[in-house]
């Protein structure tokens, strides 16, 4: 399914321009087309932040093209436990990132192009950007049936979603970014974007699942490189600027002072998990296949930390005070597996050496961890 390609091919087909020595703050012409040399989601999101915060976009809009190694990107106000399967992601080494724009969850890999349109607030117009993309697609393949919907998705053949949109509006500037599915590993995509967690109650923005399709399936000339070039050309024509794609390095502090700090902030637990809107989990499980007793677990989580926790074993299969001890010791901790493991371990040291109780205790702790 996945057609492997190297970054080298991609770069050779670019025209690169020398980076102006003054940095990007004072651009003479009416716009810029930038492409990231990095596949690191956090670095690329940091570039978006940097441009949004520091660049003067008056009459100088910017198009930013980027791709990432396998990552799940959730919207600003979403709940990662509700949106994706964190266990599979940990196993497969798929990263999790929270972007600053709103909207739903997407899966990025090298078969997906991200396009960001930076403008000043008054020029913010998402539909216009999408029409530009459609023109670019049709320039490569005129028969392609791509339409923009009210929800600002792009649909192929009227039913398959090939692009989703999100945006961020600040004080003076705004950006609209969207994806473009060329050749994504949709098996990974579907397994990772399905949450296994039960009983979550939250006001976080939910994602709207859609049927997706890769553009490459329709027409094998539509590779990522071809599409990026086409969009860049269309953008250059529309804004009457030179069609020159500038390759940028998101870790270069001389060009983007302060960018590494932004990238670091995007990787902290407090940002990725701690910014989840308040939610609660109300679930139950059996300790093991043999036992019929149901253990009920209720957790309240705010800012990613456990505010309240109750564990009930209705038929007293586990001693009440131990359950109380466990649930109260969780309060204040991050809702995360590694902190829970360490705490459980510390508690286990204090628990009596009854073998049967020990095994039950172990099982309970495993089950509780699995909801995180």
């Amino acid at each position, binding site marked *: 399914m996945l057609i492997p390609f190297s970054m080298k091919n991609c770069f050779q087909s670019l025209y690169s321009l020398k980076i102006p020595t003054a940095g990007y703050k004072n651009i003479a012409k009416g716009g810029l087309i930038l492409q990231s040399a990095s596949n690191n989601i956090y670095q690329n999101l940091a570039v978006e932040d940097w441009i949004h915060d520091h660049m003067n976009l*008056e009459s100088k809009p910017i198009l930013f093209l980027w791709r990432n190694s396998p990552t799940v990107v959730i919207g*600003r106000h979403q709940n990662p436990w509700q949106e994706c399967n964190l266990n599979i992601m940990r196993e497969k080494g798929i990263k999790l990132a929270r972007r600053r724009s709103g909207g739903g969850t997407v899966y990025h890999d090298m078969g997906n192009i991200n396009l960001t349109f930076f403008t000043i607030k008054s020029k913010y117009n998402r539909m216009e950007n999408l029409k530009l993309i459609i023109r670019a697609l049709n320039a490569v393949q005129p028969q392609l049936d791509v339409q923009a919907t009210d*929800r600002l998705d792009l649909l192929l053949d009227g039913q398959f979603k090939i692009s989703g949109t999100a945006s961020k509006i600040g004080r003076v500037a705004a950006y609209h970014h969207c994806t473009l599915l060329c050749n994504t590993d949709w098996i990974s995509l579907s397994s990772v974007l399905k949450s296994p967690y039960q009983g979550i109650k939250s006001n976080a923005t939910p994602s709207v699942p859609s049927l997706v399709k890769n553009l490459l399936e329709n027409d094998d000339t539509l590779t990522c490189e071809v599409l990026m070039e086409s969009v860049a050309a269309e953008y250059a024509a529309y804004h009457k600027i030179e069609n020159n794609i500038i390759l940028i390095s998101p870790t270069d502090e001389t060009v983007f002072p*302060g960018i590494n700090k932004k990238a670091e902030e995007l990787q902290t637990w407090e940002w990725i998990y701690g910014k989840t*809107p308040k939610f609660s989990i109300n679930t139950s499980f059996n300790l093991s296949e043999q036992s019929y007793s149901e253990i009920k677990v209720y957790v309240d989580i705010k800012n990613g930390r456990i505010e309240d926790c109750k564990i009930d074993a209705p038929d007293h299969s586990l001693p009440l005070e131990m359950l109380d001890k466990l649930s109260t010791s969780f309060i204040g901790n991050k809702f995360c597996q*590694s902190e829970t493991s360490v705490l459980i371990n510390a508690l286990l040291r204090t628990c009596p050496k009854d073998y049967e109780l020990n095994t039950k205790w172990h099982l309970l702790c495993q089950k509780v961890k699995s909801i995180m």
Partner: protein
Amino acid sequence: MAAARVLRSWSRSARHLSCVNHIQICRSIHAVKPKYTCLFGYSSFQFSHPHRLLRTTSTVSGQIVQFKLSDIGEGITEVIVKEWYVKEGDTVSQFDSICEVQSDKASVTITSRYDGIIRKLYYALEDTAFVGKPLVDIETESLKDSEEDVVETPAVFHDEHTHQEIKGHKTLATPAVRRLAMENNIKLSEVVGTGKDGRILKEDILNYLAKQTGAILPPSPKSEIITPLPKSEKIQTIPKDKPIPLPVSKPKVFTDKDRTEPITGFERAMVKTMTMAMKIPHFGYCDEVDLTELVKLREQLKPLALARGIKLSYMPFFLKAASLGLLQFPILNASVDENCQNITYKASHNIGVAMDTSQGLIVPNVKNVQLCSVFEIATELNRLQKLGATNQLGTADITGGTFTLSNIGSIGGTYAKPVILPPEVAIGAFGAIKVLPRFNEKGKLIKTQIMNVSWSADHRIIDGATMSRFSNLWKSYLENPASMLLDLK
């Protein structure tokens, strides 16, 4: 109409809001009277004390201004409030973020137009907010220092000065005062404000500078050359355009505060474990180990292990030697119950290895070291290290330990007094390997690789003699690695 004006003013670079525009925007807000937006000449450095120019409002409280949700664009009329960055009673400065709202996949950051104190929030989280309707009430100072001075443009790199406002360190100061501070490289947090609510006034900045340099500064807000200190003759020429670095010898105004936070996570686990450990009467025993032979052996074996994809440190040898020792002294691999009535001799040697991760101390263990070869131990340690580095150690990895070793020497040190991790009864800590001169059996001075080991054991069931004999045995295996071959199973 008001919306269009607002847009126009937004489209200029940040702080170029001239008073004229301000009045136009204010017309849509009832509370502010145009009088207060008059230009104030900045030529006089008899700077305006806020109270002096308050005419119609009381000197105690300022004006309550209703800050309305401005037009977001694309014809959006309502949004959902997703996060508040402020609460009632908080002090905000112009351009601080007030809240985050969401509309149709667009996330919008609403920033404050005024300096002041938040008096009322009109919406709760998840409420629908309407464009053009009040969002918050801000109590402002009635004085607005003139905005005619060019202040910061959006492309600002002086992080600490912009972020002072944004990151919650709410120092009250007008934009002109901030600029003065920035030009002189002064941290606003170090200046004591004498204005209302601790607001920093221009006078305060001037006083601060005067204290620093021992000279009176000229009144203009533009930075001038500060006359050099009489004390330090080292300062020969002062570059004209660069801000003068403050001399380190002068005492600074220390305004840091104590910070209390709850103990959670890894630290809490450590608190629980170590509190339990206090019940155990520890005794310590230290010794010196000559690792010269082991160092040579490891050099030989390192490339072989690397060829198999494993990094070989000294720890696998220490663990294996410990396990061989535990076979002879099983009481060190035991566990006692609550009242010390019964002792359980554990069959498996699950030797824990203390690991320092970004989140704190965690002790995973290698299971059944008595059955593992040195290479297998090395492989397992590599795996645990990788998991530890990414905070992915599972419960199975960190439970079930029977004996622990801590290689604190990899960070530094010689002697230690390790604390036993219950329900274990013994622990060992290693210092750094140092090259030291020692006499050999022929009385000649030779270069040796010396490491110190510090053991702690539970004196309720283990006596000094046992610990000493175990240590000697362990030491002999490491000082003469070939002898390990005799006892390897």
